[in-house]
């Protein structure tokens, strides 16, 4: 392991190749580069998750920590290791402070494994628009986690508004075991489903995506019931006229499948850590069309999959106070407001960028009023979209 203090990007590149030489005749099957973007306070969590994912997929792991952007002195500290504490592959942890943090790509670009796909993962909240972060612009796959946002459902809608093929969100990945069980149960179903209910805690993005997926695949009304204090999805029930098929979580590892006319079955439904979720993401490096459709159905934004997978970097300086960008908590706490905020930021800053958010936002309102059952955003008493059916007990 090599640790470099107050160094430069070229020194990091040199240190990495020195480590490679020191490791001997080692030629890893470098299938991809994983860029992990982390906040200082979550570094060890993110490292743990990335290490787990990297041990399942041969990759070069680049962990980028941006901090103290206001610091007057740009500075880079780096740790380079191969087969060390960060898993079997090559890993570089970089801490960037001062203005350098806004130009992280200048350090990261020369470190990408040649001609191998790049996956960028934001451990914490991603930028409101991926295009604001150059580390997301050159990535072939972008992985976010909206549950890290203060308003996960607004954040999920923002992901839909900003969507480009190749984006996925861990709230979708968390659903895979649920979707697996439900799809397996459907293998023997011959009846026509009529409606479905998903039960989850308050403002759970996975539940919303689950609803979007079911609605898209089955063409039936799906409601999300928000009850209890558990944040996750706890139950899904599909009705077929008189009969019913339900999968309910019994504890952190198992679920019970009950179906009219059949005995109950208990099956594994493991809760997975971020590392395992990330490993699932690294399994596929092409875009997830099914996710795009589920997200599109939920958000009411049409044709997400037809958008260009390429983004152009939009320069944005967080130190520039004249531009206000709402990315974390929208002022009114409404997804709608977040939309407006983003739109404003764009018109100020980027002439080259199409005002996608404006267009899609309009499309969304239209879709929302025409579709019989619209996404439940879990916030009852909304004045912005009164046509929405009320969630939970509202």
């Amino acid at each position, binding site marked *: 392991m090599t640790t470099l203090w107050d160094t430069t990007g070229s020194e990091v590149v040199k240190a990495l190749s020195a480590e490679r030489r020191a490791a001997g005749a080692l030629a890893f099957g470098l299938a991809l580069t994983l860029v992990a973007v982390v906040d200082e306070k979550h570094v060890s969590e993110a490292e743990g998750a990335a290490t787990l994912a990297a041990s399942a997929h041969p990759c070069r792991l680049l962990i980028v920590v941006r901090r103290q952007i206001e610091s007057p002195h740009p500075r880079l500290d780096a740790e380079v290791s191969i087969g060390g504490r960060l898993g079997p592959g090559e890993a570089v942890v970089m801490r960037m402070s001062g203005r350098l943090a806004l130009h992280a790509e200048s350090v990261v670009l020369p470190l990408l494994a040649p001609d191998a796909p790049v996956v960028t993962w934001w451990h914490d909240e991603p930028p409101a628009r991926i295009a604001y972060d150059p580390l997301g612009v050159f990535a072939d796959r972008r992985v976010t986690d909206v549950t890290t946002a203060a308003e996960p459902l607004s954040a999920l809608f923002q992901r839909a508004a900003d969507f480009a093929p190749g984006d996925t969100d861990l709230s979708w990945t968390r659903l895979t075991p649920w979707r697996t069980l439900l799809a397996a149960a459907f293998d023997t179903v011959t009846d026509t489903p009529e409606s479905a209910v998903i039960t989850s805690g308050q403002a759970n993005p996975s539940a919303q995506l689950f609803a979007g997926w079911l609605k898209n*695949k089955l063409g039936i009304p799906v409601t999300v019931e928000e009850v209890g204090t558990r944040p996750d999805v706890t139950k899904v029930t599909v009705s077929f006229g008189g009969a019913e098929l339900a999968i309910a979580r019994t504890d952190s*590892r198992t679920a019970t499948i009950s179906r009219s006319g059949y005995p109950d079955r208990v099956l594994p439904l493991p809760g997975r850590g971020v590392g395992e979720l990330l490993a699932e993401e690294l399994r596929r490096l092409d875009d997830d069309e099914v996710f795009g459709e589920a997200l599109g159905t939920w958000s009411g934004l049409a044709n997400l999959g037809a958008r260009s997978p390429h983004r152009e970097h939009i320069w944005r300086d967080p130190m520039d106070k004249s531009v206000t960008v709402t990315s974390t908590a929208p002022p009114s706490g409404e997804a709608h407001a977040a939309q407006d905020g983003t739109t404003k930021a764009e018109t100020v800053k980027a002439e080259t960028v199409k005002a996608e958010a404006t267009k899609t936002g309009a499309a969304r309102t239209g879709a929302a009023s025409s579709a019989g059952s619209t996404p439940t955003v879990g916030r009852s008493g909304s004045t912005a979209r009164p046509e929405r059916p009320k969630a939970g007990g509202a």
Partner: protein
Amino acid sequence: MAPTVRSNPLRDPRDRRLPRLPDASALVVFGATGDLARKKLIPAVYDLFNRGLLPPGFVLLGFARRDWSDGDFAEFARESAEKGARTPFREEVWDRLAGSVRFLQGSFDDDAAFDRLASTLEDLERSHGIGGNAAFYLSVPPSAFPVVLKQMQRTSLSSAADSGGWRRVVIEKPFGHDLTSARDLNALVDDVFTPSGVYRIDHYLGKETVQNLFALRFANNLYEPIWNSQFVDSVQITMAEDVGIGTRAGFYDETGAARDVLQNHLLQLLALTAMEEPVSFGPETIRTEKLKVLRAVSLPADLARFAVRGQYEQGWLAGERVPGYLDEKDIPPDSRTETFAAVRLGIETRRWAGVPFYLRTGKRLPRRVTEIAIVFKKAPHLPFDQTDTAELGNNQLVIRVQPDEGVTLKFGSKVPGSAMEVRDVAMDFLFGEAFTEALPEAYERLILDVLLGDATLFPNNAEVEESWRIIDPLEEYWASTTPHRYRAGSWGPAAADEMLAADGRRWRRP
């Protein structure tokens, strides 16, 4: 693909996150208290369950002679899973699976026991909704096959039509001991079940690297143009074991290395290496191509030189003294069974004419390794001085099946310095090693494929019979000879080295 998959609105071929789950079904294991069940089958079932790859309504039904209750068997299975499972063992996961574990006591000639088995499956239909689907795993000595199969026929256990679901049978090697016995066995199982319901396990084919051979050959444009006699000098397929015969003395002494390994594993690897591109990646198309290659395999005219067998003597291996084959427990002192076999085969097709395929297998060799080495011809002309390339060998592409799963490319490179000196270097692609944890066990994959009804990785009866057609003349010739001796811990008898030397080649040290 099963029709259910097409009609299920939640299944989408683009949705690759969702694994294929088999239909609700029962896995019936005959010989459920044996070694194979304990070491491989039960741990594989646990791993599949733990990974969430078994369907709702899966039942593991053990059948054996021991007088056990469901509880005794569940306890035995729990211990096996705890010891043998690849994924972390968790009590609560096991508890879920344990609810689906059943045991039936009976011997194979006991009509009543099979009647009970039939009625148990009917009960499971009601209690677990298995839909008449059952796979029968015959983890029993081949001599018991006919009895078990006849019993299943008598009780209609093997009949898919009567059960309303599917019925499959899984058998392990040896598939007979020569062409005639293999034909008899095939006729029997294919008659009791349908040919498409018979799954012959060759666990080598369940290995990731072997499946990767398909990807390497047919997904790339780089190798196919040179994958022929114009560029390939020879092919060496090695399966070496460092262990002796273990506790299998009785079986092994009757069988020998050629029937135990050459007939199945090595010929399957040869078929995968040499086959033409299948028209699509499906069981029938792949079997068609494998069968074509096996049909084209020819034996050398001079068997004395090009079909060598050996038997290990005592020696030192990995720092320990090991006894010779004849001193092993329960081996007759005058046994002429081989523990090493090496043979040169030809493939009479346009692609491979004139390219020798050297196959070897042995026990008590220095290390456990299985690999396929494609040795390329030397460059037709070298513009360097003779001395510059003195250390340059043939280019090689080596597919390492186990351990260190991966691919090695050996080629010439300039030695740094002022002189032009070219020497062999190896470029390694590691498929496993640091990543082995993620590689599923062969049995896991194969059991799942049986339940899914995917026969891609299982040889069919025609392949088995064709393999015996190749092996039978060798056995016939060897019957009158005594195997060469080799020291335990060496790479086999000197005759095997002479066999390659006669062709102006030498074995690659794996």
